[in-house]
C-alpha cells in the first residue's frame, strides 16, 4: 500500500519533469519542491521508515542478535535497584557479611555481563548500521547510473552530492547510535511500567494514562513543526550547497571579473535563509527534551498528590508510594533519551526521503522489454525523418534524413548550435527521438539494448573529461581488459605518447580531479587514445581536435585516418580542412540538413558550404598574399558573404 503510493508519486514526478522550463536553472531546488510535496502526508513518513527497515532487514542476523542483547541488558539494568534493596534489607541490616559478600559477587558478575553485552551489541550494530548505509549509498549510485542525460541536465550537481553525503550521513547517525537506544529506551519504559503496575495498579493507571496523554498532545503540536522545519532546512541546505558548488567551480571566472563581493552578497542571502530555516527546525526539535521533562515532573506531582490522597483514604501504603515514586522517576530517563532521538530520527527521515527520491527516479530511457542484443555490426546508419527537441516546445532537429554506409566518413558541418552534436547525442541514444526512426544495420535503435549499441560506438567529445587515476587508467577506460602495451600503442597512435613520457611518472602519473594538471590539448589527446583503444565499429569525433594545436593535429589526422579505415565515422569539425575526404558532408543549419554531398560537389553548388568554406579560407588568403592586400580593391568577400 505504502509502496504503491511512493512509486506513484515518483511516477508523477517523472511526468512533470519534461514540462519544466526549457533552460532550467538550479534544478535542485525545483526538484526538491516536488519531493517536498510528496512528503506532506504522514503516510509517506511511515513508508520511508518502512523502506529503511527493509534495508536494515538485510542485516537480519546482526539486528536480531543486537535486539536480543538490548533486551537482556535492559532487564539486567532493571535488576539493579532490586539488588540494592535486597542487600540492605536482607544482609546489611541483619549484619550478614558473608551473605553480603556473596551478593556483591553476584552483582559484580551481572554488571560485568551487562557491560559485555552492551559492548557486543554496539560492536554488532556498528557493522549492521554501516552496511545498511553502504547499501543505501550503493542503491543511490546504481540508480543514478540508469538515469538518462535529461535527468542530469535538470539537477544541480551540488544537490545530488548533498544527498549522497549529508542526507545519507543523517541516516547513518540514527542507525549507528540511535536505533539501539530507541529499543532499549522503549524496553525500559515497558519494564518500569510493568513494575509500577505490580506495585500499585490503580496509581499506575493514573500515571500511565496521564503521561502518554500529555505526551501525545505535545507531540501533535511539536512534531509537524519539527518535521516541516527539518524539511525546509534540508531544502535550503541543498540550495546553498548548489550555490557553493557553482561558485567554487567557476571560481576562476569570479576572480577574473572581480565579482567576489557580488557573489558573497548572494551567498549571504542563501546563508541567511539556511540560518533561518535551521534555527526554526533546531528550536522546535530542541523543545522535545525540556517538554518531556516537564510532563514527567507534572506526572510526579500527580502521583504524589493522588498517591497522598489514596494513602489518606487507606487505598495504598506509604511504603508502596515511596517505591512507586522512585520507579516513576526512572520513567524520565528513557523518555528523555527518546526525545533526543526524535530529532535525529526526524532528520534521518527527511534525509532518507531525499535519498529515496533519487532511488525511485525512474529512468525515462530504458531498453524495450524485448530489446535485442546487437551482434557485431557493419555500421550502416540511417536517420529516417528524425525530429527531436530537448524540450517539447523547442525542436532542435527537424526531419533529418541521412544514410551512412558501412565504412563511410560522414562529416557534419554548420554553425554552432545548428544541431550537429544533437545528431550524435541521438545516435548514442543519450536521448530518445520525438519522431522518426534511427536504424543501425536496419535495426531500430529503440529495439536494441543501449549498452550493446554504445559498446560498438567510439566517441571523442568536445568536452574532454578525465577521471582521477593514472594516465594509464584513463586511457584504459576505453577497454578495461587492455594490456599496458595496448594502452601505450593507442597513446602512440593518438600522438599522446611523447608528452606522457615527459610527465614525471610517465603513464603512472596520477591525474587530479578533472585532469586539471594537464592542458586542454593534452587531455584531448588522452581522450582520443581512449577512443582508439575501444576499437569501435562506429566512430564519433565531436570537435575532437579543436583544442589541439595544428601541428599536433597534423599528426593526429594521420592516426585518425588509420582509425577511421573500415569504420563508419561521424566527424564534427569546425576546421573544414579536416573533413575534405569525407564521403558525405552534411551541412546543417537550424536543425535541418540544407546541403549534402562531397567536398567538391558542395563547392560546385556555391551554396552555404561554399561560403562557409571560403570564410575560413578568406582569413588565410589574407596573409597568403600580404602585398596583394594593399593592391586589392574595396571589394571584399566579407561584403559578398553578407550579401548572400
Amino acid at each position: 500500500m505504502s509502496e504503491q503510493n511512493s512509486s506513484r508519486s515518483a511516477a508523477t514526478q517523472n511526468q512533470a519533469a519534461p514540462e519544466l522550463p526549457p533552460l532550467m536553472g538550479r534544478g535542485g531546488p525545483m526538484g526538491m519542491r516536488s519531493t517536498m510535496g510528496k512528503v506532506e502526508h504522514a503516510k509517506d513518513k511511515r513508508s520511508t521508515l518502512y523502506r529503511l527497515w527493509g534495508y536494515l532487514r538485510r542485516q537480519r542476523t546482526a539486528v536480531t542478535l543486537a535486539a536480543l542483547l538490548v533486551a537482556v541488558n535492559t532487564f539486567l539494568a532493571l535488576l539493579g535497584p532490586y539488588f540494592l534493596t535486597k542487600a540492605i534489607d536482607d544482609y546489611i541490616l541483619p549484619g550478614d557479611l558473608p551473605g553480603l559478600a556473596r551478593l556483591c559477587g553476584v552483582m559484580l558478575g551481572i554488571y560485568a555481563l551487562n557491560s559485555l553485552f552492551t559492548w557486543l551489541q554496539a560492536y554488532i550494530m556498528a557493522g549492521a548500521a554501516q552496511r545498511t548505509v553502504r547499501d543505501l549509498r550503493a542503491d543511490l549510485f546504481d540508480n543514478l547510473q540508469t538515469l538518462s542525460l535529461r535527468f542530469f541536465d535538470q539537477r544541480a550537481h551540488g544537490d545530488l552530492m548533498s544527498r549522497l553525503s549529508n542526507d545519507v550521513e543523517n541516516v547513518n547517525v540514527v542507525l549507528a547510535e540511535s536505533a539501539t537506544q530507541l529499543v532499549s529506551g522503549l524496553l525500559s519504559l515497558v519494564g518500569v511500567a510493568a513494575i509500577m503496575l505490580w506495585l500499585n495498579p490503580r496509581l499506575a493507571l493514573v500515571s500511565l494514562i496521564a503521561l502518554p496523554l500529555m505526551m501525545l498532545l505535545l507531540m501533535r503540536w511539536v512534531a509537524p513543526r519539527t518535521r516541516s522545519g527539518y524539511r525546509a532546512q534540508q531544502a535550503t541546505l541543498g540550495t546553498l550547497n548548489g550555490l557553493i558548488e557553482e561558485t567554487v567551480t567557476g571560481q576562476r571566472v569570479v576572480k577574473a571579473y572581480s565579482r567576489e563581493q557580488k557573489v558573497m552578497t548572494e551567498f549571504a542571502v542563501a546563508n541567511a535563509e539556511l540560518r533561518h530555516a535551521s534555527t526554526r527546525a533546531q528550536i522546535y526539535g530542541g523543545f522535545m527534551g525540556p517538554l518531556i521533562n516537564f510532563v514527567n515532573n507534572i506526572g510526579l506531582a500527580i502521583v504524589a498528590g493522588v498517591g497522598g490522597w489514596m494513602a489518606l483514604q487507606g487505598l495504598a501504603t506509604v511504603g508502596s508510594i515511596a517505591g512507586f515514586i522512585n520507579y516513576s522517576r526512572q520513567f524520565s530517563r528513557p523518555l528523555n533519551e527518546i526525545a533526543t532521538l526524535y530529532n535525529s530520527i526526524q532528520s534521518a527521515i527527511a534525509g532518507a526521503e531525499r535519498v529515496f527520491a533519487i532511488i525511485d527516479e525512474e529512468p525515462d530511457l530504458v531498453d524495450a522489454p524485448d530489446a535485442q542484443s546487437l551482434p557485431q555490426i557493419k555500421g550502416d546508419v540511417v536517420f529516417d525523418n528524425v525530429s527531436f527537441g530537448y524540450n517539447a516546445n523547442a525542436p532542435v532537429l527537424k526531419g533529418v534524413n541521412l544514410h551512412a554506409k558501412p565504412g563511410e566518413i560522414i562529416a557534419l558541418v554548420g554553425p554552432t548550435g545548428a544541431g550537429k552534436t544533437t545528431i550524435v547525442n541521438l545516435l548514442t541514444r543519450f536521448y530518445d527521438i520525438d519522431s522518426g526512426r534511427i536504424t543501425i544495420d536496419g535495426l531500430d535503435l529503440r529495439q536494441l539494448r543501449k549498452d550493446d549499441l554504445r559498446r560498438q560506438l567510439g566517441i571523442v567529445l568536445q568536452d574532454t573529461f578525465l577521471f582521477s587515476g593514472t594516465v594509464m587508467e584513463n586511457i584504459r577506460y576505453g577497454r578495461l581488459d587492455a594490456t599496458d602495451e595496448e594502452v601505450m600503442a593507442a597513446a602512440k597512435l593518438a600522438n599522446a605518447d611523447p608528452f606522457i613520457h615527459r610527465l614525471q611518472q610517465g603513464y603512472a602519473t596520477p591525474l587530479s580531479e578533472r585532469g586539471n594538471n594537464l592542458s586542454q590539448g593534452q587531455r584531448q589527446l588522452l581522450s582520443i587514445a581512449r577512443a582508439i583503444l575501444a576499437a569501435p565499429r562506429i566512430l564519433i569525433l565531436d570537435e575532437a581536435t579543436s583544442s589541439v594545436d595544428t601541428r599536433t593535429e597534423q599528426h593526429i589526422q594521420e592516426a585518425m585516418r588509420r582509425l577511421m579505415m573500415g569504420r563508419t565515422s561521424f566527424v564534427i569539425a569546425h576546421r573544414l580542412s579536416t573533413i575534405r575526404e569525407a564521403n558525405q558532408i552534411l551541412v546543417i543549419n537550424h536543425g535541418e540538413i540544407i546541403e549534402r554531398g562531397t567536398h567538391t560537389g558542395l563547392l560546385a553548388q556555391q551554396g552555404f558550404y561554399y561560403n562557409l568554406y571560403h570564410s575560413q579560407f578568406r582569413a588565410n588568403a589574407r596573409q597568403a598574399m600580404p602585398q596583394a592586400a594593399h593592391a586589392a580593391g574595396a571589394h571584399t568577400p566579407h561584403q559578398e558573404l553578407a550579401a548572400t
Partner: protein
Amino acid sequence: MVATRKLSAFLAPYWYWATLAPLLMVLEVAMDLMQPRLIQHIIDDGITPGNMDVVVSTGLWMVVVAVIAVFGGVGCTIFAVLAAQGLGTDLRATLFGKVQSFSFGNLDKLETGGLITRLTNDVTQVQEVVMMVLRIMVRAPLLMVGSLIMAIITSPQLAILFVVLIPVVLVILIRVINRSYPLFGGVQKRLDALNTVMQENLAGVRIVKAFVRAQHEITRFRHANDNLMNLNIEAVRVVAVTMPLNMLILNAGIVAALWIGGVQVTSGGMQVGQVVAFINYLMQALMSLVMVSMLTMRLARAEASAVRIAEVLESEPEVKNQVDAITTFVPRGKVVFDNVSFSYNDANAPLSEQGRITVVPLSEQGRITVVPLSEQGRNNEVLKNISVVAETGQTIALLGATGAGKSSFVQLIPRFYDVSGGRVLIDDLDVRTIDEATLRSKVSIALQESVLFSGSIRDNIRYGRPEANDEEVIAAAQLAQAHTFISGFPEGYDSIVGQRGVNLSGGQKQRIAIARAILTQPEVLILDDSTSAVDVETEAKIQDALAQLRQGKTSFVVAQRINTVLAADKILVLDEGRVVAEGTHAELLASSPIYREIYASQMDSQPEPTPIASKGNGHE
C-alpha cells in the same frame, strides 16, 4: 582539539546567547534537583502524618518548579540554537569569503571537491557539536561536581573510592580518544574519495554512458563505499568500548561502596541511609562522566572537520594586494613583460594532509624532464626569461604547441598568479602594486574553459559590469556573434542558463563568454583560445568585429588556428616556455622556421585561393 578551540572564536559575537544558554540550563538542573527534596517533603510531612494540606501545597510547588524548569529548558534550547546557528552561518560566510580571496594558485591546491565538502559537511559538523556542548557540556559537569560534593559531605570515608575511580575513567577516555581520533580523520579522507567518484560521475556522465562504463563505475563506487564502511566500522567499534567500560567501573564502584558501607554499618560506623544516599550520588556523578565522555567522542570527530576548516582559513592568498595598492589608475594599455619567469610549482605543491590524489605539478609544464640537469633549479618553469613589449593599441597574438605556456603567459597580466622572476608592467606600473579589483576592471579575459553561471543570459553577459543597460548588452552580444542565437531562444536574453550552461553548445558558451569580456570595456582584452569551439565562419566574424573594438586597446589573442592571429601587430611564437620568434606575420614567415611549419601545417590543407578570396583583404 586545537582546531576546535581556534574555531570557537567564532562564538564570540554570540557570547550573550552562549552565556544565557548554560545559565538557563543551570536553572533547569537546579529545579530538577529540587524535585527529590519536594518528594521527600510530601512523603515525610504530608502522606505519613496524613496532612492533606501539605500534600496539596507541595504538589502545587512541584508544578511551579516544573514550570520554571521547562522555561529554563526551552530557553536554553533557543539560545543554544541561536548561538550555534550564528556560529555556523558566520563560519560558512568566512570560509566562503576566504575562498573568494584565493588566487588561482590556492584554488589549484585545494581542489573544488575538497572545498565544497569543507563549506558544507564540515561546517555542519562543527555547528552540531557547538550546540551539544552548550546544552549538555554544561549540564553534565554541573551535575557531576554537585553530586561529588554531596557524596563527600554524605560520607567522607566512602569518598576515597573516587580517588581510584576517577583516574581509571580518565585514562580510558584519553586512550580511546587517542585511538579514535586518527581513525575519524581517515574516515573523512575516505568520504572525500567517495565524493570524488560521485562528482566525477556527475561531471563526466557522457563519457560514462558513451563507453558503457556504468558497471565499471558502480564497481569503483562500491570499492570506495566499502573502504569507507570498513574504516567507519573500525572507528565506531573503537569508540564503542568506552561506554561499557565506564559502566563496568561505575557499577564496580557501587558494589565496592555497598561492601565497604555494609561493613561500616555492621560495625556501627555508618547509617544505612548514608550508604544509600552515597550510592545515589555516585551513580549520578559517574553517569554525568559517561555523558561527558560520549560528548568528547563527538568532539574528536568534529575536530577532524575543524582541522579541515582551519586549513582553509589559514591558507594565505598567494596573490595579495599591497597595503598601498594603487586604486585610481587609468591605463593606456601598454603591457611589458620584463624578463619574466614563472612556475606553478609552489602553487601546485600537494597538501600532504589532504590525502587526496597527489597533485603533481605539471599543468602546462609537461616538459620538465627534458630540461638539462644544469637547469634543475628552474625545472618547473613554465615561462623562462620572457621579455615582451605591447604598445597601447597593439594586438599581440600567441602561438605555440599545446603546453608551450601561452595560457600561463596571459594569466600573468591580470595577476591570476604572481611571477616567480622578473616583472609584468602595465603603463610602467608593476601589476603587483595595483589593486587587484582595479587591475581586473581594466584587464578583461575570456578564459579557455567558458564557465557560465545559473541565471539569465543577460545576467551572464553583464557579469563583469552589472550596471550595463540592455543596449550595451546587445551590442556586446552582436560583436561576439551571439545575438542571433540568443534572439532565437523563446525567451531571448532572459533565457535561463542551466548549471554550468548544460543546454548551450560549447561554441555558444564561448561566444557568451566573449560578450561578457567585451562588455567590461577593458583597456586590455585577452582572448585565451576562446573561440576554439566556434565554427570558422562565426569566428571570422568575431575577429572582424573585435578588430574594430580593439582600436586604441591592447589585446592579447591566444589561438590554435593561424587565421585567428594573422592580423596581429605582433605574433609571439612560444615553445617550451620561451619566446622563439616574434614579429608580424610577414616577418615571421621570412625568419622563423617554427612559424613556417605551423603555417604550412594549416595552409597545406587549404584550397587554392580563388580569385574572389585573394582579393579579399582590402577591408583590413
